[in-house]
């Protein structure tokens, strides 16, 4: 198993919103999805998943409804709100800019090293 990575600050919200954007989903499923999609590289810490969900909900980016799962149990499903969708786009753009900038810097430092 590859070494698990801690998430950089602030990216958990982005990932959660991305997952929720695909359709209504409950907390456990989000945790599963994050783990699977990142092929277990990203350790979505379950302990911070729920506070993050509640924070996004209280800021109005997510809303939640209670409904039955396929297995017939009541669960809290999160959906992306309109405001959340806009926020997601902003954050994705920010992320893209940030990673690009970071990789630029990394490349530069290699050049200097040679």
């Amino acid at each position: 198993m590859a070494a698990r990575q801690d998430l950089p600050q602030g990216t958990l919200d982005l990932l959660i919103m991305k997952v929720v954007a695909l359709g209504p989903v409950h907390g456990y499923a989000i945790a599963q999805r994050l783990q699977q999609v990142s092929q277990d590289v990203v350790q979505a810490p379950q302990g911070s998943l729920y506070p993050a969900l509640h924070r996004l909900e209280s800021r109005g980016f997510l809303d939640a409804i209670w409904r039955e799962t396929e297995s017939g149990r009541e669960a809290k499903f999160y959906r992306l709100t309109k405001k959340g969708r806009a926020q997601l786009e902003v954050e994705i753009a920010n992320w893209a800019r940030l990673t690009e900038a970071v990789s630029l810097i990394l490349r530069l430092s290699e050049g200097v090293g040679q």
Partner: protein
Amino acid sequence: MTWWRRLVKRNELDEQLDRELRFHLEQHEADLIAAGSDPEAARRQARIDLGGIQQVRENCRDAWGPRWIEDFWQDFRYTLRSLRQRPGFSLVVALTLALGIGSTALMFTVLDGVLLKPLPYPEPQQLIGLQEKTAKATQFGNLWAFAYPNFLDLRRDALSVDLAAWHFVGGTLSRPGEPENVLGVEASSAFLKVLRVTPVQGRDLSPEDDRPGATPVALVSDALWRRTFGQNRGAIGASLVFDGRQYTIAGILPPDFRLGDEQVDLLTPIGQNTAPYMLNRDAHPGIKVWGRIRQGATIESVRSELTVIASRLSSAYPKSNEGRTFIAETLRPVTGTAGTTIWLLFAAVVAVLLIGCVNVASLLVARAVSREREMSVRVALGAGRGRLVRQCLAESVVLALSGGSLGLLLAVAGLRPFIAMWPGDLPRASEIHLDWRVGLFALAVSVASGILFGAVPALTAPALNPARALREGSRTVAGGSWRLQGTLVASELALAVVLLVTAGVLGSTLLRLSALDPGLNVNNVLVARLALSPSVLNEPDRIRSAWQNILDRVRGIPGVQAVATVDTVPMREGNNQLGYWPAADLPERTRLPLALATSVTPDYLNVMGIELRAGRFFNETDRQGSQPVVVIDETLARRAFGREPAVGKRLWIPDMGAAPVEVVGVVNHVRHWGLADDDQAEVRAQFYYPFAQVPDRFLRRWSELMSVAVRTSTPPRSIIQPLRREIQGAAHDQVIYEIRTMDQLEGATLARHRFLMTLFTAFSAAALILACVGIYGVLAFLAGQRVPEFGVRVALGARPHDIMRLILRQSLGMILAGVAAGSILALASGRLLEAWVSAVRANEPVTFSAMIAVLVAAALIASLLPARRASRIDPVLALRQD
């Protein structure tokens, strides 16, 4: 998520959170089991993966938003619990604050109604008052009431303002019903429109009504309509007789209609007044002119327009209008000396409130210090400093709010009695209401005082190093807080000094004034204004015989010793100031010295008990056609003739004719302006002239101003009924009104001083008690803190009075600091008092020291108790403590 939802639905949210987390754990478990784990291991693994469930739960709650609301709620409940544990302390604090906040709220209500609220007409900021202003000033200044012709010209020409003229007219309403004196207003037709007041029934005055020769119409007040017409709708179109003239009722004024503080009963068109002075631009009694600035104009544009019109008028009528301009000011309520009285009292109640706050603060500091260890433990267990400060503040705000709501109840209960207690008539009393402004004010004051007295303990007590505090235990002598509490007590004492000295100065002023001689015998004298029958007013001879008839009839009433008529009664509102000169070489008229002129009948001296110093008073031989005579008072005699005997000398009084009048007698000075104001009044010299010598052309006007004064051998009020009967005249239309005893009038001249002194005495007593409680509390607490130290001292040989001296030294330090600061404040506030209250001399060393002695004595007595208790310490017990 809104904060209130979180408060209200807190349980529901918690329960949902639990369900959500439980679902997560169970799903995870199920998945692990499906992957082959055994159930027990799956359970454990699921919990480990989630992390501490309690912590997740807390973090989720944090994510719901800022926590302060919940914390506040928690603090609030904690506070209630801790206050319930000490009901005595809480009660004392709440009551102290209730008194402080209650009296402050009450004074604010009065201040707001009388001084802050605008005039009770729609859009009052557009209303202006106009005056005439002359380039040259006379002894009376350079501002004048309007001449009616000037008003007419202004009204015709002004484009930026709607103008209305009005003046009060008192008179007898002789029909329907019993004859009574009513207050009326003669006004131009636009008067009510300018004020934006509409009659509740009938119609307003119209321009057609407002001209000479039109049918006389009147608007009546709601009160008069109820009184005389029994609220009959048919009153519109009915007639009434006012001052002998018949009017048709055109409309009814709104019930709350007032001009200034006057309840106006009758409104009639000024244009129908045909008195000759109405056409005179030069000499006239004057009318008031009010206006409403038109849409789009400003007071500046109105002023420039007035200047233009004034200059046009001064070239058209140079004789009267040369150098005469018109000035406009925004119309404001007239409040007289009530304003300064209210501010003084407001300052006093704020001082009492501050003392109360300081007192509570020092109690709370004492308690906070004794809770130091509890606080330290809580800090050590992780409570943030901000949280502890907030908790202290929560406690004080809860105390302040409960004190404040209790105080508001006190204000509600006390407001009407307070207004009733006001000396004389409180201006704008009808505007004083408890409304949301007062509620808001009380709330603000409560929270502010809560923060004020809560901040000190909150910021000092928990600001400590928990490790040190826990190590040191309670043996620490609270050095820092002693200095703090000393400062608190000293400032309390300083404020108490100010209040005490103020009360003392007012008291000694009152004593000095009460000892003054009014210059007349006020016992058993009744005075009342009297309106002659309108039917006699047009013929001078009938006026003279009507007055003679009244004097004869009143003299016959059993219990009447002497009777006279008089135009300006001493110590009552109203006076007549005339210029005089003791030689024929008169200077310019505007530079003549002034004297108070009073026209009386021969028995006046006997009625008022004024002493004749030289010569004679008037008698039946002083009449129309005989040598005009005057009797002067000693002040005028000294000013006009110095040491020479005045009797036989002559005075030139231009307003009474070109020929000089002869001085036939000298009487003592009467304090016409009242005991408080006469000595520093600008016009004090007095002279009397016989009513019989008033020229025919003035007789009607004089008769409208005349009062009857009666000396009785029985209690004066007992003759009111017979007096009414005897003076009503053949037509039953002569009435007396404004009935007063001289005793009453004299008392009223000191009423303001008495009122202020009473209240300041009460406030300073409260301040003194609070300050003593403060000193006692602080010393008791400090002595308690030093018990172990005292134990050591006693064990080492200190005697009880040594311990006492230690404590008293501490208290004396606070007292002296307080007295020093208070004296400086008191000197400053004394200047204010001198400026605002007549006859006060702020520099009264005796009063000053006496009041400070009272304070020091009281404070020392309050310190003695804890000092004695400390001195009786048992060293063994003391050392065993802790």
